[in-house]
């Protein structure tokens, strides 16, 4: 562990999902050329040559995530993804691992709320083996009973291990409490109780229903010839059988009215980890660029209003930030920080004041100019590698965004006016209606935090699950 000056973890991960800023050079950075093909079985294929490093990156989106989990079986999409490479029709789990590791390749599959992301990476010289391993896992997993039981047991213990590190589960509790019964509140990885209910047949059924070519986007970027790659992919994936899509549409969550507070008791805590906010925005929100600019000023960089107040000026915390975790439908907005037990209310009060100030005073022209330069200057490294590019074009396809999301980003950032900033503050940043979630030592901080909300809920961190709906 090397202590760093900053650990703005949430900001970084949010940036990766959102795609962020832009370069201020006269000649703007453009997405490298790429092509889209829809195979006969309905599979969408995106191809992008990116030369310089002899690596191939595959990024796949299966358009089903935890929102497709049946109630009570939270974690089903996640476990299904985790088992893809744990035994296929022609390879045992051990053989798959041996073949993959021998060429130094990577394969990973993770569910999120809206979709399951599968990615693979290998050297260009190993392209045949790499494509074979990837398609083997995606098209022919067998979900052997032994592997199912092994993974479920690991996942349940993994949640317990995560609860030993408060910040790693803070968002699970916050999302559960904020979204409540909406599918976006479900813990993507499930919880101790829901995982114990999942059976092999449910996994196989989830796979059969959701892993279909028509429900899948596959993006490939890297050092290869596009025509040759296309032929390889058609050969490897063209035989994937088409199926009718049965996906139900999701209705977006609605904002919480009033104030409520969940206190998760972790009796050995020396710090309180707190998150508060409300429902945020969808990934394709028309205001998304102006929101990014304003949130950069408010809570999205080191000199943000929040970090200046809670860290730089007062030393209350190692870091404070705000982020929009945008999804297909409106996701969450959150303000996040942590402070020692004694200063819990001082830090939350201060964060609330910074939010109130944003609504009252808005942002200055200097702040706007600075945030625009920052976003533009920091953007190019986020689409530097073939892996980043493959994930970017796959996500755009999923969210219904086009290349202008990148190619026009600079112009769109420049076009944000003070009036637009004022508008998005009023529309997208909560003010009076707030949902609070705190993890900390309840016996010490409980009385002080009562003032934040009339509705108060509490649970112990050792209790299974993350949300009131968990049974």
């Amino acid at each position, binding site marked *: *562990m*090397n*202590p*760093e*000056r900053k*650990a703005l973890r949430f900001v970084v991960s949010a940036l990766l999902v959102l795609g962020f800023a832009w*370069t*201020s*050079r006269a000649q703007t950075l453009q997405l490298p050329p790429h092509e889209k093909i829809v195979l006969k079985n309905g599979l969408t294929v995106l191809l992008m040559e990116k030369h310089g*490093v*002899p*690596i191939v990156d595959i990024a796949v989106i299966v358009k089903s995530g935890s929102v497709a989990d049946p109630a009570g079986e939270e974690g089903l999409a996640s476990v299904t993804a985790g088992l893809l490479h744990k035994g296929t029709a022609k390879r045992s*789990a*051990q053989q798959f*691992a*041996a073949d*993959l*590791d*021998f*060429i*130094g390749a990577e394969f990973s599959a993770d569910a999120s709320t809206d979709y399951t992301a599968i990615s693979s990476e*290998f*050297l*260009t*010289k190993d392209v045949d083996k790499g494509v074979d391993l990837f398609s083997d896992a995606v098209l022919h997993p067998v979900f052997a009973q032994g592997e199912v039981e*092994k993974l479920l*047991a*690991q996942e349940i*213990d993994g949640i*317990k*291990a995560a609860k030993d*590190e*408060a*910040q790693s589960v803070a968002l699970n509790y916050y999302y559960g409490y904020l979204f409540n019964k909406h599918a976006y509140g479900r813990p993507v990885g499930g919880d101790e109780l829901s995982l114990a209910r999942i059976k092999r047949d449910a996994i196989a059924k989830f796979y059969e229903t959701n892993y279909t070519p028509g429900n899948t986007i596959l993006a490939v970027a890297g050092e290869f010839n596009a025509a040759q790659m296309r032929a390889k992919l058609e050969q490897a994936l063209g035989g994937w059988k088409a199926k009718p899509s049965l996906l139900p549409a999701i209705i977006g969550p609605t904002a919480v009215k009033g104030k409520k507070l969940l206190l998760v008791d972790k009796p*050995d*805590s*020396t710090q309180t*980890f707190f998150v508060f906010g409300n429902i945020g925005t969808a990934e394709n929100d028309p205001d998304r660029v102006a929101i990014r600019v304003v949130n950069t000023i408010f809570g999205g*960089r*080191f*000199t943000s209003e929040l970090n200046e107040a809670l*860290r*730089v*000026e*007062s*030393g*209350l*915390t*190692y870091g404070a930030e705000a982020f929009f975790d945008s999804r297909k439908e409106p996701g969450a907005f959150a303000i996040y920080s*942590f402070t*020692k037990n004694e200063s819990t209310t001082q830090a939350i009060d201060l964060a609330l004041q910074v939010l109130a100030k944003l609504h009252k005073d808005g942002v200055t022209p200097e702040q706007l100019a*600075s945030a625009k*330069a*920052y976003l*533009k*200057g*920091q953007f*190019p*490294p986020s689409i*530097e590698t073939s892996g980043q590019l493959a994930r970017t074009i796959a996500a755009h396809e999923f969210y219904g965004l086009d290349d202008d999301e990148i190619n026009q980003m600079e112009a769109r950032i420049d076009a944000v006016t003070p009036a637009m900033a004022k508008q998005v503050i009023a529309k997208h940043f909560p003010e009076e209606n707030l949902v609070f979630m705190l993890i900390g030592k309840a016996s010490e901080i409980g009385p002080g935090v009562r003032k934040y909300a009339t509705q108060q809920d509490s649970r112990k961190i050792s209790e299974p699950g993350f949300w009131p709906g968990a049974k």
Partner: protein
Amino acid sequence: MNNVSVALRGLVLGTLLSTTAIAASAQSEAQQFPVATKTLKNGMKVLVQTDHSIPNVALYIFYRIGSRNEHPGTTGLSHFFEHMMFNGAKKYGPGDLDKAMEANGASNNAYTTQNVTVYQDWFPRSALNLIFDIEADRIQNLSFDAKKIASEREVVASERRTSVDANNGGILDEQLKATAFIAHPYQWPVVGWMSDIEHWTMDDLKHHFEMGYAPNNATMVVVGDVTPEEIFQLCEKYIEPIPQHPPPPPVTTVEPEQMGERRLIVHKQAELPLLMIGYHVPQTNSPDFYALNILRTVLVQGESSRMYQRLVDKDQIALEVTASQGPAFDPTLTIFAAQPKQGVDPQKCENAIYDELDKIKKTPISDVELEKAKNIRLVEFYHQMRTINGRGNTIGTYEVFFGDYHKLFDAATNYGAVTKEDVQRVAQKYFAANNRTVATLIPDNGEQGSAKQ
């Protein structure tokens, strides 16, 4: 000694791989990584690698000072100082540095280890002059504002509460090192003991700055949309006038040979236990570095690795097993860590780890395993090299820890030369019972007062 040398190194990977195709592509790859070097008159070495693929720059400054240069009572000072380097100098006062950088599209960070303190700037090339102006300002004119120091002390205390108090791995790692080293400064945590964080004095800070922040104690690496000529010119203007002064005194303490296993237990409220085992191993520039890395790869890297197969897959006693070893100037530790599953006695994980080590001590690894480990190392090289940021950090790390960045391009050859017998020899030599420290975290969730037995 205004010595400019431009190195155009081919990556000699042919010896490593059985296929010839990669050798060709690797060599064409290598031509994209020429490194230009220059040693300034004040002793700072500057390395530049041009890459115009994005209009951005990664700039690293490695100072050869870390927690190994500290003393009891002022542990964590290097890391605290890293924070202070952002809190104001002469031209850029408190808060100005970050504001100026961000308003010009730049971001920054820094990290501290037992060995080095490293400053990182990521910016569009339009901010080049500003970045040099800031770096020069803070190397020579750092301000020591009492109010700022008091506030930053609290920030670092919060960082420690997060990375140690609220992180079982952090607690156990700290206790393990404090037990494994009895003489050498690697025994204390980089972030520092809490009581030291609370008690450094202004004089301690000033002394640390005098000692560590000499230009001749630093190496600068610049990678991205720049030319060596313009960087050297900027260095001449901003950095070269800074006078050199004596670097930190050498760390002369040598950790005495460990003559028997050491064990420690941490009792704490927790959902799951945790196990760490540390073995003394040599410093980074030791000839055994490559064989030790191959051994670690065979043991824990990937789901086909021996310890994953044994502890996670077959015996199902652990969620995860890792082995870590960071770059180090002095003899250091390889630390195995296992997260036991619920209800599993950590002793079981411990025994399985020893058993897997014993197997390699008795019988050399297979040819396939050796080739796999070398392939994994090659792919890792490309991973590090694929971004301007990765290249900046990697070029600097090789230059600082091996004393020569060329070792980066020799790594494939050096890994290629490792034999099964080498791997067996280092397993026998370093992973012996007398050379280990075993740390176990035992969940203690009983009522207060009746807990520990």
